[in-house]
């Protein structure tokens, strides 16, 4: 380590005094540190015996709840998924539907989410009938409503997962930089202070620092 000290300066600096924090402050900080150590979250080592079931069961319960809430919210809001074409009743219209599947992936996904059901009276061509039979075997009538639900649930789960993931520090910094660009300095200061609190040891790159700090 290159020592840039100057002995005279160091000596004079020491003469300024060796102040220390008050003992009450020491006691307060140490008390907080002890409480924090006691209230540690889940252990880093996997639990053994009966306790090994706790976390999977808890995780499953949380996921189920999140999915249920998300599905409920989705059902409250009419969106593209709720607008589906009328079920095709003839082989021609079924062929049209198959053609339409080539349109675009999102549309195809939407259609998959709400598959059309042929009425019992229709007489599809043999090849299509075979395909229908196969589809019907996969999705028997009593579960017809649960199939789209499963698709919606899949979407909802992905959305729930996205929401659950904490915003990345880089993204937060970009948001703060944007606030600065917009001249919202007070807001940016608050956001930056909160960022520092959440990520006290995060090293902000020089370039980003210029963007997020008050000019």
């Amino acid at each position, binding site marked *: 380590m290159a020592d840039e000290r100057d002995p005279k300066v160091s000596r004079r600096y020491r*003469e300024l005094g060796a102040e220390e924090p008050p003992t009450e402050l020491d006691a307060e900080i140490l008390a907080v540190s002890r409480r924090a*150590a006691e209230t540690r979250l889940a252990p880093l080592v996997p639990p053994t015996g009966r306790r090994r079931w706790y976390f999977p069961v808890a995780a499953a319960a949380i996921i189920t709840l999140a999915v249920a809430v998300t599905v409920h919210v989705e059902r409250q809001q009419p969106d593209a998924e709720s607008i589906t074409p009328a079920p095709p009743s003839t082989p021609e219209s079924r062929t049209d539907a198959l053609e339409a599947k080539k349109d675009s992936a999102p549309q195809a996904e939407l259609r998959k989410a709400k598959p059309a059901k042929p009425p019992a009276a229709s007489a599809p061509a043999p090849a299509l009938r075979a395909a229908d039979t196969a589809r019907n075997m996969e999705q028997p009538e009593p579960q017809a409503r649960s199939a789209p639900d499963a698709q919606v649930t899949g979407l909802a789960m992905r959305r729930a997962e996205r929401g659950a993931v904490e915003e990345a520090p880089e993204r937060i910094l970009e948001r703060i930089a944007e606030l600065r660009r917009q001249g919202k300095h007070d807001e940016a200061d608050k956001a930056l202070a909160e960022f520092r609190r959440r990520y*006290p040891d995060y090293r902000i790159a020089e370039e980003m620092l210029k963007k997020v700090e008050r000019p």
Partner: protein
Amino acid sequence: MEAPDEQLMLAYRDGNAAAFETLYLRHRGRLFRFVLRSVKSRATAEELFQEIWMRVIEARERYAPQARFTTWLYTIAHHRMVDHWRRGGLSLVELDDQDPPGDSPDPARQLEARQALARFAQALQALPVAQREAFLLHEEAGLSIAEIAAATGSNAEAAKSRLRYAVAKLKAAVEDG
């Protein structure tokens, strides 16, 4: 043999409160002086000092010994101080009415020593923030140039330059006295 800081912090992260106490007692004085010499009042210094340790406690789960614990600690301190300086609380504590060290009973010499110390304190106070911080991190916290750079988010050249300017100005103040 004393346990290294990094080991103590890891032990605390894993729930050992006694490890934190050792660590705290080891660093409290230096960190407190670093903060005290960077702000206006002792009350503010105490508040900031406490907040820095709270952040250390909060960040324990994310602690990984990638550098010396001291560098990590002063990185946290730097960030907190930057927040404080941004709000405009930039100054140094005034010297208490304490006698400077020395065994001279001569009142004239004592006065002279006090004045010299006051000049030094003023010179330290007059330093630009970054230079003063570099000086305090080096002199008080014992950080190397590279560690100052890491703690303050700058580069080694900038850290070295700031420290050199600071020492040169303080040396001039000492020699004036």
